[in-house]
């Protein structure tokens, strides 16, 4: 069995800024242990000298030309101009 205790679930929830009730903590602890037990089978795959893959089509460092688009520039004394939304007499 995978060792994932109630306090671990609480800690992970805290890291991820999730608020759980005590009942949820108990439920998720049971469910997550089952999943972690299952995915632990990856230990059986020999991955010595294997490089990790995160991008499957071989792209790396995709850049575009650094050109200024006049439509995206600040338009008035370094401010964006937008339509007036507050009426004058308010």
């Amino acid at each position, binding site marked *: 069995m995978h060792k994932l205790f109630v306090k671990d679930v609480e800690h992970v929830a805290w890291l991820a800024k999730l608020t759980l009730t005590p009942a949820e903590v108990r439920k998720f602890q049971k469910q997550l242990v089952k999943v972690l037990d*299952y995915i632990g089978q*990856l230990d059986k*795959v020999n991955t010595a000298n294997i490089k990790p893959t995160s991008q499957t089509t071989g792209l790396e460092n995709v850049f575009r030309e650094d050109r200024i688009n006049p439509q995206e520039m600040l338009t008035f004394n370094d401010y964006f101009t937008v339509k007036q939304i507050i009426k004058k007499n308010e």
Partner: protein
Amino acid sequence: MNDLPLTIAETQEGLKKKKFSAVELVDAYLARIKKFDKEINAFITVSEETAYNQAKKTNHQLPLYGVTVAHKDLFLTKGVRTTAGSKVLQNYIPPYSATVVDRLEKAGCMMIGKTNCDAWGHGASGENSDFGSTKNPWNKKFSSGGSSSGSAVSIASNMSLVATGTDTGGSCRQPANFCSVVGFKPTYGAIPRYGVIATASSLDCVGNITHCVEDSERLFNIAKGGDNHDSNVKDGEYKSHVSRLKIGVPQEYFVRGMDREVEKKVFEAINVFEKAGLEIVKVSLPHTKYAISAYYIINPAEISSNLGRYDGIRYGGDRKNFRDEAKRRIMLGTYVLSAGYYEAYYLKAMKVRSVLIQDFDEVFKKVDALISPVSPTPPFKIGQKINDPLAMYLMDIFTVSANLAGIPALVLPFGFNKNGLPLGFQLMGPRFGENTLFYLGKLFERLSDYKPQIAKL
């Protein structure tokens, strides 16, 4: 209008011959939605006004003239609420549209609405939607599959002509399979994902769900290609298919414990191809059994990162609005990425991913495509697996490998089981091998005398 056309070709021919107008098509689909959607819950939002506006603008010079489309509610649609199936975004109205939404609109499509889905694309049953489960139109007690549940159901029940979906681990293919329609997942990076709410970024693909392979191909041809907004798009060199095609049957996709009727039907499909003179070869993808484990490390890891942005400050509700499945995946992902576990889980999974890719690369030196089941079982009952996350994850066993390897896959409907529930099979190809898949799909439709079928509601 009594008989709605079921393919793009029929639709455009009917329009050309003035059997009906684009506005009348919208009328007819909206009428069906009004009449039946309460029971099956395929739509989260119906965009009547947009549909009519676009119906007035569509014209016969456009490639998708008069095509009614339903978008999965993960696709941003300017001015039309987009929820991702989650209460976090229940009031979110996007200021811009996804590239794919724009491209389909410019090509002549009319958007009928936004379809229900498992929240954030997490699930294989439609039950994780915060807006209620989508029901299988062939039997409402059964799951529609997921996560593009509403997209598949809207096609199977004739509430739209075509639909978009996303496919991170089978989310277009499995619901298509459960609803007896065509489901397609392209090569990773073939279609821009700009404006599509992210599930797991190294796996996410924009796919589609249709009544026939030709329609799927037409949508793909409009949707594909770079947009300068998604830097993972690769304008790949699409392989043109060779004359003597070889189809591989990966033995690891026929496992003990899988449903007998599902298995039998795939072999029936193999026979259809064999009789037509295609060479069928037994092949092996030896690491298949590890795909689910690698997937359920990489997928939650990327989810925990992608859902980190929902803090309720800039837009959307706060993190209290996440429901069980999102919470589980955020926690699982946070855990496998945390100090001390990163190498044992995440790094290990990325290495196993490389091994799985090597399996496919080897096999595609010998064959042009692979044939397999889509799901180990036919549709299961709503409620049957929802309290057992691991059992639900295992439903993805035959679909996740294509996402891990970034290869395209096409799912075709093929008959029904003894309980009247849909069956079908999956074709997988090498990266940028879409042309071969569409060719084989259309060939199969011809050979099996395929006719699109609508579920009786």
